[in-house]
């Protein structure tokens, strides 16, 4: 097997190097790749779309359908993790911790449950008390991370960033919360239902913008057609912003969904 | 000679097909079901008969149904040869339907609805094959027939029929896919058409060796014709209920095989090409080997239906031989033999079935003295056997007469010898049966001398077919007319 794979790998590498011989030099500004499409984008994007970040302009406008489908891929991944791992079977044993005293109760009969109120906390077998330093630092960091994430989403038109990056950062702030406290603490604040709906709604926002353009008489995702409603000025940039927000919503939700399902094997207990 | 656009041939094919859902849905009420079978049979027969006058006037009737590829459509066209075959098949269908009521109910067989449904499908395919305007349509119906017959052959659903069914499929499907299909595509590739025409479709594209290979692919590919060595499915298929053996393995299926071979010889290659290449002799040789060998084997068979099966193999090769003689008389004889053999052989099968229903005996050695118990059946048997042997006053004599004339016309003394020898052999394997049935000492007789025939529904059909065989001697029309017409068409004369 190793030998076979080595042969396959070498063959592929050989083929690629063979193809490389004919490639233009690295960094040459006069390659076909730089002269044809990209030349158009660099020289005209700002006029067409009024967005200085070319990457965002191409991503969310010229090739917007690509991005929409890619958001669909992300949604698909979230749904996949949910379907594959989510486990609804109830636990057999229950552990409860008496919060004031720290005493742990083990209830073996699944019918007899303690309503986890203020006094008792439902918990897992391998429970460890969260570290105070970590808790505090994270508690202080997370708001900033989230603000920054929103900035990245919103400012994608002018600086590096956009829906994906912002969404991932926002998602990781939630993941950080889950790591520093525990998963249940996160799920109490952000329910699974909310995340599921958010992940679909993000793509739906994106698509809604496209479909509305269609209703207004343009092609799918043709932001120009919003001009009668929102005015000519910066209309494409506005469309892109809307789209990026959709992407951000979806990516945030999906990142969290993937994490919570992998880390708890779909049981949604306390996790890492 | 004109071409008449008409939907009649299509209807003749479709009626037995369309009645199948009705048959299936009325499966619970056997009488209603049989009534529908009869209605379909009679309607279809009437449609075929209604086209006879036009065909006798030398016209063709047809319709293009679906274009498949340029030069290859699913199309129906009725000419004299097809008409003759369709007449035989559709008329015998009615008679067999009657017989199968007697047989199946007499034996209380299971799954009768399935049986009649597939029977109808098979007959529809047979008529379709008879009316095919080109090779691809013929192939289509040929394949449908192969597959529709499989549940009939394996009707008993036991181990024996499983084995036989396997052999049946291996030979029929194996040859048609493995030989006919490539041969057909070869033809289409070389010529761009598959339409039957008297002049053949090849205009000098074919060298002698490739023509020989192609011809052999067709002759052995149409394994339903039972040319040796692809004949072994036929004796195996005798496990089927007797109506199946009677109609399908004496008339419809096997005749579709020889019919296809005749079509290929006359419509694809063309008589002229074949005689200029001298390939007629080759086919004739293969056919005569089959005739002699199968007749010899038939002598040694003890099971009634197997003996009949080997006899059928021989008789089918008569037809092929007649066509391969390429002389007008010989071809007329061959084509006419389709009819004569059909009526003769179906009588014999009916007799075998009737005996089985009445006594449960399958083997000839158990039938000594049966003549006294079942005199009507055995008399019919005599007439049928005489027709097969070719003795007057039965229809078989006429077709054999033309075959003999054909050999003389073509100066083929060897073939004449083959024909005469085989007639002797025919007599040798049929006459002892009749002799033992009536002329045996009371001590040898295995049955009481008490009149005890099979059910009426079994006996009436065999009497009818025997009578028709008898009548054909005196009134061979319109079949003789149709065969001569067909031959005139082929030779362009």
């Amino acid at each position, binding site marked *: 097997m190793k030998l076979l794979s080595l042969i396959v790998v070498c063959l592929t590498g050989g083929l690629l190097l063979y193809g490389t011989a004919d490639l233009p030099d690295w960094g040459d500004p006069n390659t076909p790749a730089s002269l044809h499409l990209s030349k158009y984008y660099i020289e005209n994007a700002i006029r067409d779309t009024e967005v200085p*970040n070319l*990457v*965002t302009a191409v991503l969310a406008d010229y090739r917007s359908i690509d991005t929409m489908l890619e958001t669909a891929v992300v949604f698909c991944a979230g749904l996949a993790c949910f379907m594959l791992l989510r486990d609804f079977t109830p636990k057999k044993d229950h552990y409860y911790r008496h919060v004031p005293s720290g005493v742990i109760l083990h209830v073996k009969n699944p019918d007899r449950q303690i309503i986890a109120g203020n006094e008792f906390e439902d918990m897992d077998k391998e429970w460890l008390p969260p570290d105070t330093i970590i808790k505090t630092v994270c508690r202080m960091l997370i708001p900033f991370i989230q603000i920054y994430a929103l900035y990245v989403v919103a400012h994608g038109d002018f600086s*590096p*960033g*956009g829906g*994906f*990056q912002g969404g*991932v*950062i926002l*998602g*990781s702030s939630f*993941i950080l919360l889950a*790591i520093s406290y525990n998963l249940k603490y996160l799920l109490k604040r952000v329910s699974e239902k909310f995340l599921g709906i958010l992940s679909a709604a993000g793509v739906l926002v994106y698509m809604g913008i496209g479909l509305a353009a269609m209703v207004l008489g343009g092609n799918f995702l043709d932001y120009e057609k919003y001009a009668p409603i929102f005015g000519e000025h910066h209309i494409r940039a506005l469309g892109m912003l809307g789209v990026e927000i959709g992407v951000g919503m979806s990516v945030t939700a999906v*990142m969290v969904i*993937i*994490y919570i399902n*992998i*880390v*708890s*094997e779909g049981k949604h207990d306390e*996790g*890492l | 000679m004109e071409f008449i656009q008409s939907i009649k041939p299509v209807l003749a094919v479709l009626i037995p097909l369309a009645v199948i859902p009705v048959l299936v849905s009325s499966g619970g009420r056997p009488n209603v079901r049989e009534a529908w079978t009869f209605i379909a049979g009679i309607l279809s027969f009437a449609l075929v008969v209604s086209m006879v006058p036009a065909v006798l006037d030398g016209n063709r009737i047809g319709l293009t149904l679906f274009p498949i590829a340029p030069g290859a459509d699913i199309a129906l066209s009725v000419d004299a040869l097809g008409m003759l075959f369709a007449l035989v098949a559709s008329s015998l269908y009615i008679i067999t339907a009657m017989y199968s009521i007697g047989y199946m109910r007499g034996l209380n067989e299971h799954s009768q609805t399935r049986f009649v449904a597939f029977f109808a499908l098979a007959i529809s395919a047979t008529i379709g094959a008879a009316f095919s305007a080109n090779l691809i349509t013929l192939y289509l119906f040929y394949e449908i027939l192969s597959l529709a017959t499989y549940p009939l052959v394996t009707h008993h659903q036991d181990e024996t029929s499983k084995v036989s069914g396997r052999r049946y499929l291996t030979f029929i499907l194996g040859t048609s896919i493995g030989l006919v299909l490539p041969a057909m595509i070869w033809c289409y590739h070389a010529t761009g058409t598959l339409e039957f025409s008297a002049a053949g479709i090849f205009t000098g594209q074919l060298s002698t060796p490739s023509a020989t290979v192609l011809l052999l692919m067709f002759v052995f590919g149409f394994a339903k014709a039972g040319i040796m060595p692809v004949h072994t499915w036929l004796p195996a298929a005798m496990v089927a209920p007797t109506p199946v053996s009677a109609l399908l393995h004496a008339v419809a299926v096997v005749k579709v095989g020889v019919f296809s071979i005749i079509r290929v010889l006359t419509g694809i290659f063309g008589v002229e090409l074949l005689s200029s290449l001298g390939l007629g002799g080759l086919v004739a040789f293969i056919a005569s080997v089959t005739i002699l060998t199968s007749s010899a084997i038939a002598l040694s068979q003890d099971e009634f239906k197997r003996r009949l099966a080997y006899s059928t193999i021989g008789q089918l090769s008569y037809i092929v031989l007649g066509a391969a003689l390429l002389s007008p008389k010989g071809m007329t004889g061959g084509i006419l033999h389709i009819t004569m053999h059909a009526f003769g052989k179906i009588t014999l099968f009916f007799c075998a079935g009737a005996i089985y229903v009445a006594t449960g005996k399958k083997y000839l050695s158990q039938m000594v003295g049966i003549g006294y118990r079942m005199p009507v059946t055995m008399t019919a048997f005599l007439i049928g056997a005489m027709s097969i042997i070719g003795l007057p006053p039965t229809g078989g004599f006429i077709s054999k007469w033309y075959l003999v004339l054909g050999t003389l016309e073509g100066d083929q003394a060897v073939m004449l010898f083959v024909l005469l020898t085989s007639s002797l052999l025919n007599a040798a394997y049929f006459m002892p049966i009749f002799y033992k049935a009536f002329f045996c000492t009371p001590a040898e007789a295995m049955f009481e001398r008490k009149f005890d025939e099979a059910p009426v529904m079994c006996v009436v059909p065999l009497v009818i077919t025997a009578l028709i065989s008898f009548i054909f001697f005196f009134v061979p029309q319109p079949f003789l007319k149709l065969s001569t017409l067909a031959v005139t068409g082929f030779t362009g004369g």
Partner: protein
Amino acid sequence: MYWSINLVILVFVIVCALAAIYVKDLLATAVLFGAYSFMMCLLWAIMGAVDVAFTEASVGAGVSTVFFVAAVFRTSRRTKD
């Protein structure tokens, strides 16, 4: 002017990749994989692909690594190769 830094980082990238594959502890693999992604991100930033670098930093070096650690936490650290 970039090429020397570029080359150095490329070498680092390859070293990290090989190490991630050959180390016999999956948690170490996860961490090395994070380092690999981060190196890659630097490389792309040098090549002027800021958006791609940004994404790789958050996705590759950030979330992917967390996923790896989570998966290792739920399965096992043990590996034969």
